[in-house]
């Protein structure tokens, strides 16, 4: 997760830095791809297919608002159809005006949906557009999305009829128009697709607005599910069951793309650098306002695991830190750093230090390994691990059989390592040693009065 946040921060930083370049480049690429797809789909006018024309128009779109791209897309489509059939071109232009009057006028800023849906239909992922609109906009985008569906089907039908009837004369234009009209009104799946897209937009929007964690992610999934079931119902209704697999695959791809879009939406929200100009009585101001929102990169920390300690450094008690056990009132001493012997010293509060060194009896291998690890741990982590270890060993103390076996075996077989190296003791062993010390002290106390009495 932290890597994602770092990536987001990095992207945000670079976007802020190169926003003036990135935005036109992205718009240029979008316009170029859109116009190329229109040219390859309706290849009737050779002059429009020239790379120079496409590049020039794309360049213009790079520095103008997105609605200009929508306008040029419509112009390109109409001009292509003019080359094939002028009457059909007029009808297409009229249909565009009707769509504007009924739908697009109410949400002109979402006009790119009208271009996006037909283009993504050619890539089999038109479902991405309603999910994205639900995520980023409001339910009024149902209207432009319906426009997009109508435009796609209209061009699909016109293309089919224009190719078949390319040799039509002027007298044959009315029958051609009748055929196209009947085909358009006969394709009830146009209404079905527009309805499902509207439903997806509403569902994604409503779920996204819910006050819960991961609302946007759940909204994408909900939109994808509604999309699949909606189109399945449409397929059952209109009998076009052949494309079910393709539709499900397209929906999955669209949902994945929506997740990517969501990530970038969160990255680029409120990160745009603003360049504003204004003036007062005394000055002209040319201000570049850079948003402050940023997540800091993770600080890199270098840990020296096998750092050698200088031989001359004395190991006195200054190298230990004092840790008070509040429950027992005991004071522990622990090495401040990982180097040195790593021995632990324990003493009663105000009492004599009692180093826990065991020259003869060694701890089990398990405890030795733990001791090795503990030497290099920070104090808080060491305390936590010690508590966890004591919690684990305490309830199992009575049942300890398998884990405790290596100790007597090791002792019996004479495998003790008499190195004198200090080892960490677990809680049970410490308690046992304490009990022994108490018993010894009690015995000494019991002995003393007898001597006194004997003296009298």
């Amino acid at each position: 997760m932290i890597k994602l946040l770092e990536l987001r921060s990095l992207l945000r930083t670079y976007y802020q830095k190169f926003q003036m370049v990135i935005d036109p480049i992205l718009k240029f690429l979008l316009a170029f791809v859109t116009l190329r797809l229109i040219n390859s789909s309706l290849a009737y006018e050779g002059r429009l297919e020239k790379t120079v024309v496409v590049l020039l128009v794309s360049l213009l779109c790079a520095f103008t608002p997105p609605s200009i791209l929508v306008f040029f897309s419509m112009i390109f489509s109409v001009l292509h159809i003019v080359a094939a059939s002028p009457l059909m071109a007029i009808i297409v232009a009229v249909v565009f005006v009707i769509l504007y009057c009924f739908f697009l006028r109410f949400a002109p800023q979402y006009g790119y949906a009208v271009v996006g849906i037909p283009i993504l239909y050619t890539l089999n992922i038109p479902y991405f557009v309603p999910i994205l609109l639900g995520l980023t906009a409001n339910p009024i985008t149902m209207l432009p999305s319906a426009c997009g569906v109508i435009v796609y089907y209209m061009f699909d039908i016109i293309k089919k009829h224009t190719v078949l009837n390319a040799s039509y004369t002027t007298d044959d234009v009315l029958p051609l128009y009748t055929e196209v009209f009947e085909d358009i009104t006969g394709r009830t799946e146009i209404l079905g697709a527009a309805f499902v897209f509207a439903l997806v937009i509403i569902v994604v929007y409503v779920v996204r607005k819910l006050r819960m964690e991961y609302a946007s992610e759940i909204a994408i999934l909900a939109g994808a599910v509604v999309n699949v079931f909606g189109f399945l119902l449409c397929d059952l209704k209109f009998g076009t069951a052949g494309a079910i697999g393709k539709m499900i695959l397209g929906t999955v791809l669209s949902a994945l793309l929506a997740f990517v879009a969501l990530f970038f939406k969160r990255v680029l929200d409120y990160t745009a650098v603003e360049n504003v100009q204004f003036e007062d009585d005394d000055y002209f101001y040319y201000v570049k306002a850079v948003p402050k929102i940023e997540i800091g990169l993770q600080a890199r920390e270098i840990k020296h695991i096998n750092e050698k300690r200088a031989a001359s450094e004395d190991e006195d008690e200054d190298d230990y830190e004092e840790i008070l056990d509040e429950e027992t009132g005991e004071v522990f001493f622990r090495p401040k750093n990982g180097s040195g012997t790593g021995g632990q010293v324990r003493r009663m509060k105000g009492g004599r230090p009692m180093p826990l060194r065991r020259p003869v009896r060694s701890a089990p291998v398990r405890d030795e390994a733990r001791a090795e690890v503990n030497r290099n741990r920070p104090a808080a982590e060491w305390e936590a691990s010690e508590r966890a270890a004591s919690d684990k060993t305490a309830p199992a103390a009575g049942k300890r059989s398998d884990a405790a076996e290596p100790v007597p075996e090791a002792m019996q077989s004479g495998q003790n390592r008499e190195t004198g190296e200090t080892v960490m003791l677990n809680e049970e062993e410490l308690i046992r040693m304490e009990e022994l010390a108490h018993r010894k002290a009690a015995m000494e106390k019991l002995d003393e009065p007898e001597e006194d009495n004997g003296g009298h």
Partner: protein
Amino acid sequence: MLNIRKTRLMTKLAIYEEGAGRQDIKLSKYYKSDYVRLQILKTVLSVTVGYLLVLALVALYKSEYLIAQAVTLDYRAIGMTVLVIYVVLLTVYIVGAIIGYSIKYDLSRGKLAKYFRMLKVMRRFYREEEGETAGNEEANND
């Protein structure tokens, strides 16, 4: 001397005015009822144009039949059907326009309230500056 606080405030105002606030400031020139009425008028106009174009396309499609049956057609019934569809369509769009544009207006007022607060602070800055200037002039005259 540049006043940093004033510059910050002016920058915020300029960002709002040149961005999201452009539309809101346009709406602030109208009363809500006037704005909604204007939008209803525009909607009626656009729906009428769109409906006429649809009728033209349908008429073109049915042109052969219309020409052949021109004498015997029941123009009254056709006219009533066309009119009823138009009224229903218009009603739906008008209701939608009233709801949609009212919400839009209310939302813009919410955003404008913050903008006006900033403008008030700005006015205070100017008053303070004028006061300082007047004080300096008096001191110079003395």
